[in-house]
């Protein structure tokens, strides 16, 4: 019990004193996961929308694959990315193993199916005649798609939240491809794992609290945007 109590006190000390190491770790976490989410947003929304709006043979199979991808185990992604960028791997020449770039790639791979699956469902959930209605008012195909994406902006924001929430809290892939190098590729989750392993529970608890706060703040911001669309 005392352990937890001490941990919380230490956590507040670290947070209030703006400990430079903790600050650096937090900033890197935000940067890596933010960029990864941003990338996944582009790929996920465009492919999700395209799949939702076109009919092709094997569409159901593709949707099942995307939905399976929403639960992609981070360690499997970590393993896959490691193999790809390993010194002798196909992308080894890029020399990005154990760098934040590798972490961004891994996290983007984790977040993309989540964003894709949610945007696919969001676009599919729009009334089926809405496409025809928009086209019948003289829209080009591109204009039609853009109107649909805007119309589905609330569930798409949910997709962003889910994607970001998934990668900021992920540890397996980040530790495998980032290496948890102090001051370089150490993020909140990997640091928490390491400190817990060393028995430094106070620091681990502090990092955990920061992680929770971070996730909370980002979601609070996005929820604000989302709820603004719903005047009561």
């Amino acid at each position, binding site marked *: 019990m005392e352990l937890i109590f001490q941990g919380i006190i230490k956590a507040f000390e670290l947070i209030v004193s703006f400990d430079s190491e903790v600050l650096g770790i937090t900033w890197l976490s935000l940067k890596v996961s933010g960029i990864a989410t941003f990338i996944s947003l582009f790929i996920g929304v465009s492919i999700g929308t395209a799949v939702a709006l076109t009919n092709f043979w094997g569409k159901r199979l593709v949707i099942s694959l995307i939905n399976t991808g929403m639960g992609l185990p981070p360690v499997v992604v970590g393993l896959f990315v490691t193999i790809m960028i390993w010194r002798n791997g196909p992308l080894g020449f890029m020399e990005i193993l154990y760098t934040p770039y590798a972490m961004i790639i891994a996290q983007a791979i984790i977040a993309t199916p989540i964003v894709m699956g949610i945007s696919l469902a969001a676009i599919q959930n729009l*009334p089926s*005649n*809405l496409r*025809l*209605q*928009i*086209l*019948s*008012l*003289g*829209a*080009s195909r591109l*204009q039609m798609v853009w*109107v649909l994406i*805007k*119309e589905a902006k609330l569930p798409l924001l949910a997709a962003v939240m889910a994607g970001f929430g998934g990668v900021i809290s992920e540890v397996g892939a980040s530790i495998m491809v980032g290496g948890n190098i102090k001051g370089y590729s150490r993020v909140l989750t990997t640091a928490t794992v390491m400190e817990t392993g060393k028995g430094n529970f106070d620091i681990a608890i502090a990092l955990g609290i920061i992680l929770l706060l971070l996730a909370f703040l980002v979601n609070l911001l996005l929820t604000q945007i989302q709820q603004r*669309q719903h*005047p009561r």
Partner: protein
Amino acid sequence: MKSKTLIKIENIIVERSGVTVLDIGELNVQQGRILALIGPNGAGKSTLLLTLAGLLKPSQGTLYFQELPVDTNVGRAILRRNVAVVFQEPLLLNTSVYKNVAMGLKFRHLSNGEIKRNVENALDYFGIRSLTKRSAKTLSGGEAKRVSLARAFAIKPRLILMDEAFNSLDPPTRETLIDDLRHILEETKITAVLALHDREETLRLAQDVTVMADGKIVQSGTTSQIFNEPDSEFVASFVGTETILEGTVKSKNIGLMDISVAGKTISAVGDFLPGQNVYCCLRPENIIVSKEMPEKISARNVFGAKVQKVIRQGFFYKLLLDCGFPVVAYITMPSCDDLGICEGSVISASFKATAVHVMRRE
């Protein structure tokens, strides 16, 4: 007919997953006319509307818009820019009424000033200027319908296509909307094809009618042709057995009008002005049939009639009479025997002035 053909269908076949859902030899829509598509559910009315809008590609046949075949890119672009579709559901975007109505104009890259002018015009037409800033999600069903209509009219289309636009509206809302729409169509002279549900709507809005069943056209003609001279049992049963006559109000005297119908005069109760074109609707059960001209009778309308046809319908007969204009009457089997009515006999038909349902006709 003087007017020009605006849109024309030639030998069109539309298939959906291998099944033919639309098979139309010929359909012409004249410029400035209002055509009603009627028929049971699944008759292909919606499919035909989507085909006319260029939103559904026929597997065979050609669509012509202003004499130009639509199967070229140029033809399709011209059609798409000149047609607007109003679906059964309002399908408004989750934004303000203004932005919804402006949508089609935005696609056309008009300047903000032009968009504003057109949007306000369209909102005024449908009497919903006060809703401009409202969120579309907070509108009532009737308001939403008006917004979706305003959105279609805002782009000033040459042709407007409407799919059962008045469904799911409560009766008073529907009544006023039908009246408003008729005025707007008259004023703007926009050609319209409307998939409609009931005979009353059809009579009030349309000048021409096309009856459809199983993806095919069963009969096409002017409204009174279809209602009075259905050329098949199917059309007759669909449009009902009511007699619908075209007439013009001759004079009016304290609520009682004299209406001239095919050279004869019918007295009817109503409030239309002399000169107004009207439909006179008569229900068969309100026609009293007698062997000789009745001498003292309260009914104001008494006509000599020749029995054209006697059709047995369950426990009564349906008589098709010729009084100088066609009239349908019902008579029980015993009465028919008593009066000795058969095809060719000459009788008299009478009905009260209050039995004539008078409707405005364009």
